[in-house]
């Protein structure tokens, strides 16, 4: 079944690739993938390479820790169940060594507490297998360019859209926009990830703190409400829907 999923996933990534062609090329990142399932590792590495990143693959936790400590990677993608040193211990050791490289955990353990465990061990994000490659790519991109903690931005700007985080006010072209609290959070998440894809699941987690898959169109509904407020009254659309991938907020290209 695993192989079938990856073959299908590859098809998915090709579709995603077409969408990505229209977008500015991502800055090239060095990514270390620590995963012992070779077919999964090949699939992910190939996808990341096709998206302009450099991806090293290791199958062992001890090697992974060594490489992650020695070389400077932009993002680590770590499977939790790997030989040598398990993923959690590896990341704990890495954090203890003072390395702050962003870590995305991959896991087949879909348990309720597993996500919390991963984050507590020093992970920055968490993705449960099986996953769509687009989801992984979006999360890796979001991690890599996360601004350093020291840099506190109080006003987010995309084109003529402004979001004042201190005064909790949104405006576009000088025209004030009334947003409900959750709409504000939704817009904030999208603006912080300007130009990058934010998936439906990422929005559910970050805006509503939902860690399950709703059976109704929660995200679509709220996105359409937001769009009606920030895009509809204006000429240029900033909030874009990427089919099978998610949403992206950016100025027209």
């Amino acid at each position, binding site marked *: 079944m695993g192989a079938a999923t990856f073959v299908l996933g590859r098809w998915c990534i090709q579709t995603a690739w077409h969408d990505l062609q229209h977008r500015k090329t991502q800055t090239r990142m060095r990514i270390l993938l620590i995963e012992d399932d070779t077919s999964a590792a090949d699939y992910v590495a190939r996808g990341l390479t096709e998206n302009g990143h450099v991806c090293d693959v290791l199958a062992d936790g001890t090697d992974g820790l060594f490489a992650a400590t020695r070389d400077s990677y932009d993002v680590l993608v770590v499977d939790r169940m790997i030989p040598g040193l398990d993923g959690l211990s590896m990341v704990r050791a890495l954090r203890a060594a003072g390395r702050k490289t962003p870590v995305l955990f991959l896991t087949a353990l879909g348990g309720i507490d597993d996500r919390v465990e991963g984050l507590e061990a020093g992970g920055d994000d968490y993705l449960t297998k099986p996953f769509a490659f687009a989801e992984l790519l979006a999360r890796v991109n979001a991690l890599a360019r996360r601004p350093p903690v020291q840099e506190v931005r109080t006003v987010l700007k995309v084109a003529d859209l402004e979001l004042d985080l201190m005064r909790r006010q949104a405006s576009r072209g000088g025209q004030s926009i009334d947003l409900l609290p*959750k709409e504000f959070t939704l817009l904030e998440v999208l603006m912080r990830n300007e130009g990058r894809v934010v998936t439906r699941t990422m929005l559910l987690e970050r805006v509503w703190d939902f860690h399950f898959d709703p059976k*109704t169109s929660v995200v679509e509904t709220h996105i359409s409400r937001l769009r009606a407020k920030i895009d509809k009254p204006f000429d240029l659309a900033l909030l874009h829907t990427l089919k099978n991938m998610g949403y992206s907020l950016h100025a027209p290209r």
Partner: protein
Amino acid sequence: MRPADLWRHSTFRLALGVTLAVLGALILVGTVGYTVLHRQLADRQDARLLEIFTTLQQSDAADPQDLVDAIAARITASPSFSTVFLLRAADGRVLASNIRDVPIPAGWSTVEAAFLGVQTDYPYRMFAGDLNGDHLVVGLSNADLDDLSEIILAGFGWSALAVLVAAVAAGAWIAARLQRRLTDVTLTLQRVAGGDLSTRLAVSGRGDDLDLISHEINQTLCRLGALVDAMRQVSADIAHELRTPLNRLRIHVEQAARNAAVLAPVEDDLAAAIAQSEAIDQTFSALLRIAQIEAGARREKFAPVDLAALLGDVGEVYAEVAEDAGQSLRCDLDGAAWVMGDRELLTQAFANLIENAVRHCPQGTAIRCEVRAEGNRVTASVLDTGPGIPAAERELVLRRLYRLEKSRTTEGTGLGLSLVKAVADLHGAGLALSDALPGLRVDLQFARILGAA
């Protein structure tokens, strides 16, 4: 119980230990008692001896012959040699005596009977002193003293033996009783190890420590049984629920492969296959999640949760979803209502209930969320004015074993409600489905906690 095994039983060792302790205490008490008593008796004997000596001394003061007569009278009065005398003049002549003429030093001494030429087994206590130039020796047999000591010693011995026998008997009885109950525990646990999780330990009802332990073990067995049942249920569910979509997935992939071979388009089949694999993943995750919730480990992470605020947030998320579906969603919240719970799971449970209403009710349906805190209870309800669930089926929806049948007949809601049921059980909350006249009313009744921060 074979004697060889006896030593390995802690109960036997305990009984033996108690017996030895009792014996030790008895020996100590006996020794101290005997020593004190013996010294007391010896002191009295010495006092009597001194009294005799002093009386004779006084009779000597009047006339020396009186003394000799007095001693002779006393010798006559003591044919069994319980009292012995020896009066020697200054020139060495023996004036009166019932013992051999032996040198006895002045003052106190103890000598053997044979030394005095007396045929008894007991030693004598002697006192000697000068009387107007004469030398007087008076002695008392230790017969009384020694006999008495022997009687006391025998008394102590017998009582020690009696106590020892009693202690051994009581120890053995207690040990046997304890051992019987421990053996019960061992046998029960052996049956459990053998796979029989329904067996329970007998509780005597006396409320003693063994009862407490038995009770704890029984509770553990209950939990274990529930866990194993849950695991069995999940395995059965997975087999049952995943085989069909797996088969469909396989059909799509095979069809795509066939199409690819003849260069026909494969996109539709592959898209269907991906959708199918996602459906499988969702079912699988839901089953695993329910199983994990039922396992109950989450309970340790409970924290105070304001149900009103939580349901208000969830309602806010879905208000626009309902609106887009041509329905309305309203929340009637009656101030803060604190319960102990898991925020994430409660959010999912209420989201499931609201989504059920949104998905299964027609346009124009009014959905209402309520939270009421009354007395020591908090009731959270989700009501709709939709078609409802027939009374006969409401029972089935909540019964775990009917989950699959239910999910099959009502396109997937079975797992959603199962999750709500699992979350409710985890929180010890009562879950009730009733008629909202018209529509469905779902009530979750929690135990209220008072004002968390």
